[in-house]
């Protein structure tokens, strides 16, 4: 079997870029929301919980449709962002990243939230009696202790982004070189005669990337766990 064609390479590079950006951009909001949901006591916590989990249960096409009417050029959020900051999502790779980030968000939040629940809050009390301001307690006690959960969440988010199809294609379509990620490209190959070779090659690439990501996360998590609990 011959190597990847330039178009296929473009799809691979784009997928990696979209997934990395989606994961990185959702990391800090993910940690914040996980804390709010796990530790916060406020009105509307249940509603926020449901909202965060919606992408997990809704058909991806529905999420893509919501994004299209909300973040499209004429959507309320999309128009505002385009005018004020020049940020455009519709039919751009940034839109693909947004769709992937939202689809992976519940997975990210769940993983981090579980690790926050497992933190012994008595350790945080101990740190504060030793003179640590709450911000420092978070930085030097809580954060290191939840690091395994954060890594797990990041890997899940990345993996979800690599495989995201429905929301992405609905929101930003499948424009080669701009929004055509690996899954979109595979789908496109299956729609044309003689596309089996390309579909097979991209499928193999996607398997390799998934396995590599899983292996990397396992390795990182084991290292961190050794540091945190050994």
């Amino acid at each position, binding site marked *: 079997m011959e190597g990847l064609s330039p178009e296929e390479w473009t799809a691979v590079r784009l997928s990696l870029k979209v997934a990395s950006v989606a994961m990185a951009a959702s990391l800090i909001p993910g940690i914040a929301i996980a804390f709010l949901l796990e530790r916060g006591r406020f009105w509307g916590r249940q509603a926020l919980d449901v909202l965060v989990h919606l992408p997990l249960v809704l058909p991806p096409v529905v999420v893509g449709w919501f994004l299209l009417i909300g973040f499209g050029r004429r959507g309320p959020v999309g128009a505002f962002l385009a005018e004020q900051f020049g940020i455009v999502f519709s039919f751009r790779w940034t839109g693909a990243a947004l769709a992937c980030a939202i689809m992976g968000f519940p997975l990210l939040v769940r993983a981090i939230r579980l690790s926050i629940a497992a933190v012994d809050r008595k350790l945080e009390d*101990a740190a*504060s*009696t030793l*003179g*640590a301001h709450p911000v420092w307690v978070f930085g030097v006690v809580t954060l290191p202790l939840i690091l395994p959960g954060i890594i797990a969440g990041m890997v899940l988010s990345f993996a979800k982004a690599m495989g995201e199809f429905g929301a992405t294609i609905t929101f930003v379509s499948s424009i080669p070189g701009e929004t055509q990620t690996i899954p979109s490209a595979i789908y496109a190959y299956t729609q044309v005669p003689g596309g089996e070779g390309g579909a097979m090659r991209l499928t193999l690439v996607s398997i390799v990337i998934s396995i590599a990501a899983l292996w990397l996360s396992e390795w990182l998590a084991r290292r961190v766990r050794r540091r945190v*609990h050994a």
Partner: protein
Amino acid sequence: MILDVSIEHEQGAFALQASFQSNGKLTALFGPSGSGKTTIVNAVSGLVQPDHARIVVQDRVLVDTTKNIVVPKHRRRIGYVFQEGRLFPHLNVRHNLLFGRWFTQKGERTASFDHVVDLLGIGHLLDRRPSTLSGGEKQRVAIGRALLADPQLLLMDEPLASLDEARKAEIYPYLERLRDEGGIPIVLVSHSVAEIARLATSVVVLSEGRVIASGSAAEVLRHTSFFALEGRAEVGALIEAQVSRHDEAYDLTVLQARAGTLSIPRLPHPIGTSLRVRLRARDIILSLKAPEGLSALNVLPGFISSIDEAEGSSVDVQLDCGGDPVVARVTRKSVEELGLKPGLAVHAIIKSIAFDPEALGVTGRENM
């Protein structure tokens, strides 16, 4: 005043209403579980915000709810040694010890790392992870960590409760050195009379959220009525004695107290060592005449200084034996039949078994 505490706090069905003052080097908060000891230390450290309180440590007002003063917990400078150690699992022993240092100004650092490590005997553990330490080692590191944050007061919430007797015995000497050389006043939460008898200079007794007695350890521990059932059997007089000689032939050590000499099973301490001895009230028999033909080795002559209020069938008879206080718990019936009353000369007969090693503490300079 080292510690001036007055707290009113409700937590579900439990109501705490406690106030006490202490100037002791080591103040013990004593009481059964649920009596409010931990709530008090949590309020002092800031981990619990009491409904109404005034808490002053070393003349620094930490809480005064009438004036809306509440110093945040991270600025209180109150060291806290928890029952379960609570070492940070992701840091090695050295970094656990230095944790408080990250948050103190250079000028405020007085505790020397080397001195604390040396005092607690943890130099060989510095590069270890907390999970590889034994229970006793963990507690010593936890004590060191609290000390190195340069606290103005050290709170210890039953720091030895999770340890077996052997581990406790390993830590007592460190706590004694800390009390006598550390220069930081200590509040120790405990429900063991033996522990308090050994370590405390002041005692506050709590019951169901109220203070029922407070004062110097020797004063408080002389009254069995302050202590509930299990504790009562352990209560008694604390007297200071020196090792005067060892009787190798009989494997005994002879102690000299103001009250007289006391023979006890051979101790390892060298001659001249000062020891604190607890004479349990229930182990003392009173006799009007000097006893003869008795197997007990220790008989202290003295006279009755006062008789506590009777409680059920028993009553505490307070004695003065050559200036040392001794207390005997006898029946009301005996008091009547022997005609015991203040001023009467009596002999206190002490069963040697009463000298349990746990109660034999090396005394500091200004205890009792």
